């Protein structure tokens, strides 16, 4: 009699509890989605700020490496002058071919350290 009055039916309770849990899960999911949405947005802004900073730094590097800037620094700070072709001296890369007997023998010696592949 009491059971009927209180409507206590374990299966019904389980159903309501399940529905309640689902409702709570959906609410939680919505809250989480919103929270993550805020975070994504703030991270996106941060990423954009960092990208902007990287771009600024890259620009500074490029500006510093610009030929006009390099030439000005080489001229004023280092006292360099442009080379003429006749002032250049070419050095042979392979001493074994260009050198005498000793360099040739030296070049034939096995390497001391492990060879890199």
């Amino acid at each position, binding site marked *: 009699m009491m059971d009927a009055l209180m409507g206590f039916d374990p299966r019904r309770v389980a159903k309501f509890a399940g529905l309640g849990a689902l409702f709570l899960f959906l609410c939680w999911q919505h809250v989480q989605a*919103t929270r*993550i*949405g*805020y975070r*994504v*947005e703030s991270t*996106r802004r941060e990423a*954009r*700020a960092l*990208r*902007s*900073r990287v*771009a*600024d730094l*890259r*620009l500074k590097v*490029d*500006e510093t*490496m*610009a*030929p*006009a800037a390099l*030439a000005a620094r080489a001229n004023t700070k280092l006292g360099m002058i*442009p*080379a*003429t*072709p*006749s*002032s*250049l001296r*070419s050095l042979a890369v392979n001493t074994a071919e260009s050198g005498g007997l000793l360099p040739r023998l030296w070049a034939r010696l096995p390497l001391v350290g492990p060879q890199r592949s």
Partner: protein
Amino acid sequence: MDLGLRLTVAASLALAPLLPLGARLAYLQVIRHDKLSTRASGEFARTAQEAAPRADLLDRQGRVLARSNPSWSCFVDKAMVKDANAFGARLAPLLQLPASEIARKTRAAHRFAWLKTKMGQAEYQKLIEARVEGLGIMPAQERVYPNGDLARGVLGLVGAEGKGLAGLELSQDKRLTGRGRRMEVIRDGHGRTIYKNVSDSGDTPDPVRLTLDRTAQYLAEEALREGGEKGQFKEGIIAIQDPRNGEILAMAAWPPNPLRNPLVQDAFEPGSTFKVVAALAAVDDRIVRPDELFSGENGKFQLTNGVTITDHEPEGNMNLSQIMEKSSNIGIAKVVERVGAARFYRLARAFGFGAKTGAPLPGESAGELKPLSDLTKVGLAVSSYGYGLAVSPLQMLGAYSAIANGGILWEPKLILDGKPPVKVRRVASERAVHEISAMLEAVVERGTASSARIPGYRAAGKTGTARKIDPLTRKYSTTAYTASFAGYLPASSPRWTILVVLHEPKGAYYGGLVAAPVFARVGSRLLALEGVPPDRPTDPALGTARR
């Protein structure tokens, strides 16, 4: 009364007031659902689009010539501003603009007006934190050129809307323009953005690699700037091409102007640099023997009644090589008479004169070549020494490249896109081209272009000096000239074709005196830069230079 009925009536009475509410709810939720939903989402849902990045422009070695940097622009929404003066005063320290200017822009705006563009990250952050009502901020992309004015005539210009306005920025606009990322976002009650999802991931195009060499470009511009700043000429251009494949390595102009590229858009009367056409036609068809002599008429030759051709120096008998060395107008006029109008015209066309070269730059000039029917005795003679016609610098550069490489005319290549260079045609036999090449070497060795010599290296080329047409009188000026030199080096195995054109030089005006030294200067720097070994190590001048 039955208890059930009483309960039903009581419940009905209690619920009766809810009926209109339910009806209203049904009306709003069912009948007007779509309309209201759209309106609601319009209130808080947004599509945010990031500014589309524009592709980088790189030189042939991958060094940046133009790049897009993230920036911000801010604007005023006049409808949301109550007091323009207060608005201006609040923003002035943040934007570093006078308050009066901001107030004036606000008052003048219909509803919207830009207040400042190209803002950096720091300024943007300050504005975000300030939360000024009526102020909007938009992300943008700023086009930057890290090398300053270097190659700006080629690169061109981008407008405030991010569209190319001139140069490669205009001609390659589609290829350079990216698509910004689009995102669905919603805004909360405080106006803060909540990310929802990416609706379009956007597209950043790959960088466009040019054939230009940043260092060669700098060397060319430096050579022009020095003369230009000293007032040695009014305008000047230098173009450098690789004769082996037609790749353009440098296009420099003085004064620099990103909206105009005279190397492509302008045409000029070339003067004696055009003499190679008549000479090559004569050699190619074996019309003139190498040892055949032509009288220089002591510097004055009456071609027809009333038409006299003069040379700057009186000359006696000359063979073709000497005609080129001394740049004799009389000699070349006699040669071209033998060649004939048809052959001369055909070869000029074969060199690409009178037609666009196909360079991927806007506003290319085709130059002007007289039609064959206009090449009368006088017309043919003056054309042979480069008068009465107009060529674009790019055409002249291509023609000398064809001579440098043994007779192949290449389409000028400006973009390294992985496609092989386009061979336009063979202009003349290899034998004839080699003979002309030897004559051009003699021009530098002992002719009018001796100041183009570089100790230890063989160079070849031809000088040109032409009177300019006075725009007021429409006659040839006696004071304004165009001095030019077109040549290549090292002549044993040409790597660079260099064209120097100086308009209205002050003082000395002969191409050999003003343009040829510029060629030598740029050429020697290129040789040193690339470490090219001398192709004439026994040059006596080499020892002098080394000491």
